[in-house]
């Protein structure tokens, strides 16, 4: 699996990623063992666990691409200390706009796609503008945005689904056409998975190597200190939203190409999955902590969890429960390790202070004598 291959040098000294990686490896091993045991029980012999078959791994990538792209934008926003609850409905809006545009309004496909991305960037920037200039809570503004986008989306399609006839199939082009695995099952690696990887690499590089990336972290960690250190806090926050709009626009196109139907449910509750992936990937809700690699792993982990539960034929009701518990455990674990670290630091400082006071008292008594 890709995520288990992640080199330790890539992780650096970031303990959050380490936690996610450990959880991920543990999870994969657990599922493989479960499959082996179940195979042994039902068929009386060891068989290759389907969870780690190449077909299934590609499957997981296909299922997570949309959420993954959105998670990169959300990661930037959350690192700068904000949040965006509107991405789900914005995806629906984008998808419905494209479907309606190319089917009923006669907009040429390329124009429709560009317009869709521009709309997403525009709407996100608008929210970013309000949030950064008037210093309003991003939670509230994007919640309002989400509701409004739902309204616009439903108005555009008259609350009906807009079925396409495969106009967006380009994005599903199989790059490894004809390739099969050892059992002879054909493999698919659609273009949109590559787009997901490309966007991940771009965001990883932007956050890690550029001036803007460093400023995003600074704003999320301490906005006041960032301002006094010459960071244009308002513009950094605005730009994070604009970048997120770009991600949402692209994700909307890809999700539409997968299902071929412009429908409101395409993005429904997607923001929950996106935020969950980002949080599992080690980005602090308070901002300034985490990175794109962690989020990438978080996305794949969330995807793998759903996929594994489907393979193991876990009832869908239970799937929700398990996912929820995993999020809670993962994040609480991170918080606990943070508290432990903070305590250790505090104890160190106290010891220093005590040693110093002791010295001073000694001086006082010797001088008074």
């Amino acid at each position: 699996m890709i995520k288990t291959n992640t080199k330790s040098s890539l992780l650096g000294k970031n303990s959050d990623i380490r936690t996610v990686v450990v959880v991920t490896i543990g999870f994969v091993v657990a599922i493989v063992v479960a499959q082996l045991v179940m195979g042994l029980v039902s068929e009386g012999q060891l068989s290759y666990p389907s969870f780690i078959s190449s077909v299934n791994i590609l499957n997981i990538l296909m299922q997570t691409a949309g959420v993954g792209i959105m998670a990169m934008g959300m990661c930037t926003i959350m690192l700068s200390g904000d949040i965006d609850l509107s991405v789900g409905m914005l995806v629906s809006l984008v998808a419905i706009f494209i479907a309606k545009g190319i089917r009923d309004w006669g907009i040429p496909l390329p124009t429709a796609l560009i317009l869709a991305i521009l709309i997403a960037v525009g709407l996100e920037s608008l929210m970013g503008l309000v949030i950064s200039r008037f210093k309003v809570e991003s939670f509230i503004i994007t919640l309002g945005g989400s509701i409004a986008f739902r309204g616009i989306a439903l108005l555009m399609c008259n609350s009906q689904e807009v079925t396409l006839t495969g106009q967006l199939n380009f994005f599903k082009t199989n790059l490894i056409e004809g390739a099969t695995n050892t059992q002879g099952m054909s493999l698919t690696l659609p273009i949109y998975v590559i787009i997901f990887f490309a966007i991940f690499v771009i965001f990883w590089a932007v956050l890690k190597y550029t001036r803007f990336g460093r400023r995003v972290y600074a704003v999320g960690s301490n906005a006041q200190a960032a301002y006094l250190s010459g960071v244009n806090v308002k513009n950094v926050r605005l730009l994070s939203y604009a970048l997120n709009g770009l991600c949402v626009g692209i994700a909307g196109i890809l999700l539409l190409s997968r299902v071929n139907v412009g429908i409101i449910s395409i993005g429904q509750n997607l923001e929950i999955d996106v935020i969950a992936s980002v949080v599992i990937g080690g980005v602090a809700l308070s901002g300034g902590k985490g990175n794109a690699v962690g989020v990438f792993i978080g996305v794949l982990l969330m995807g793998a969890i759903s996929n594994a539960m489907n393979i193991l034929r876990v009832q869908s009701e239970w799937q929700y429960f398990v996912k929820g518990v995993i999020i809670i455990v993962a994040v609480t674990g991170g918080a606990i390790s943070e508290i432990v670290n903070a305590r250790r630091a505090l104890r160190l400082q106290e010891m220093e202070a005590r040693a110093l006071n002791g010295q001073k008292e000694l001086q006082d008594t010797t001088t008074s004598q």
Partner: protein
Amino acid sequence: MSNAVLELKNISKTFPGVKALSKINFDLLPGEVHCICGENGAGKSTLIKIISGAYQPDAGGRIVFEGNPCLLNPRTAMELGIQTIYQEHNIFPHLSVTENIFVGLEITNKGGVINRGEMRAKTEEALEFLHCKFSPDAIVGELSSGQKKLVEIAKAMVFRRKVIILDEPTASLSMSEIDMLLDVVKKVAQAGIAIIYISHHLDEVFRIADRITVLRDGHKILTCDAKDIDEPTLVRNMVGRDVSAFYSREYFTPGEVVLEAKNLTGNGVKNISFKVRRGEIVGFAGMVGSGRSELMALLMGAAEKHGGELFVMGEKVDFKNPSDAIRHKMCFITEDRQYTGLFLNHSIARNTIIANLVNRKTLFWHPNEDIKVGNEYIKKLNIKANDSSVLVGNLSGGNQQKVVLAKWFNTNGEIFIFDEPTRGIDVGAKQEIYKIMVDLLKQNKAIIMVSSDMPEVISMSDRVIVMRNGVISGELSRHDISEESILQYSIGGSKI
């Protein structure tokens, strides 16, 4: 004194790195107005926080209330009848006077129903006693600052408190309101209530004090009847320190003017004019709240300028935000490093490079470069950390302050504003910071230093500008700098 309502015996309080109070003995008689005087950091606030129960004293001290030894926490202090009225209003602006007084302590009938009539009557009685002109039903948010203070005093009257602590009660009041408040305080004391009154304004102190206690560096210097002491003697007792508290530095001949303010107005300060030259430290002294930090924010473009002109290296500038100021080689080491200076959950490297992003032209570089820059400063400034990937939150106060310095040194600044450069750091690190500041002067940089630490101001400054109530109240050249002269200008008493 057996009839004292409150006695403190041998009270000390130690914080990490500093002894705030040392073996204080203090007594308070019913019906007296007892003023506590001292400079910033003398221990006044710590003392009242111990009396109001917010802090616990070190082991070995005793607190006796009406003859009974007791342990004070905020709740028992309240139950015993000690009420503290802080500088900031502790009120609910949308509630009426009556509701504010009885909030949390409502009088109820047997069924648990609030008895509004009785509460209102009691409030009215107290307001009448204090000669207040507003009704018990007035909404407190609509009252003046002075009237808000009266509401809090009325509360003490209603609940028959025995001790009232007033911390800088006149800070935001007009002259006529101050007169009114002082009359009320006297009246309350005549009713047998003991009052602890803290104020920087010595004229007020002499108008109402029965007794005065002077604190200095956490020690009690004296307690005496107000009529037995005059203002010059009082000031002399507030100042005067050990020579060891002073740092002796090298002086250089100041060079060209690099910063000049002409009638600068805005952010709560008015008509500020001064010049800063290369190779000198201009100290800004004054009481807390005199507008020094506000002025620094204005210089850095972090607050809006309403008038006047600012020249940096001869160029007239109009900073819209701090990044403009950084481009003009200005540096701002803020007062509160944790809230406005550092990114505690980031590495030393990240903290070091952040301010210089303004000057950096490249868009794309490897984080290892940041680490390298950070490591350089670890060596240069003797920061105690293995390497610059260590999180700043894990460093001690002195080392954190050095990281702030590293951040600004990395911008290649020329003009350094130090706001309380050594607050909350230990003696050893203090000396190091002073040495670093003198090194800056050697490199022909200019320094503006805001400090409430008297020895620091005196031993580090080439010149001292004293501020009071948002204006410059005096400027002292190096040979005129003394604790007396600085205090004189900052509290505005008569000539000594």
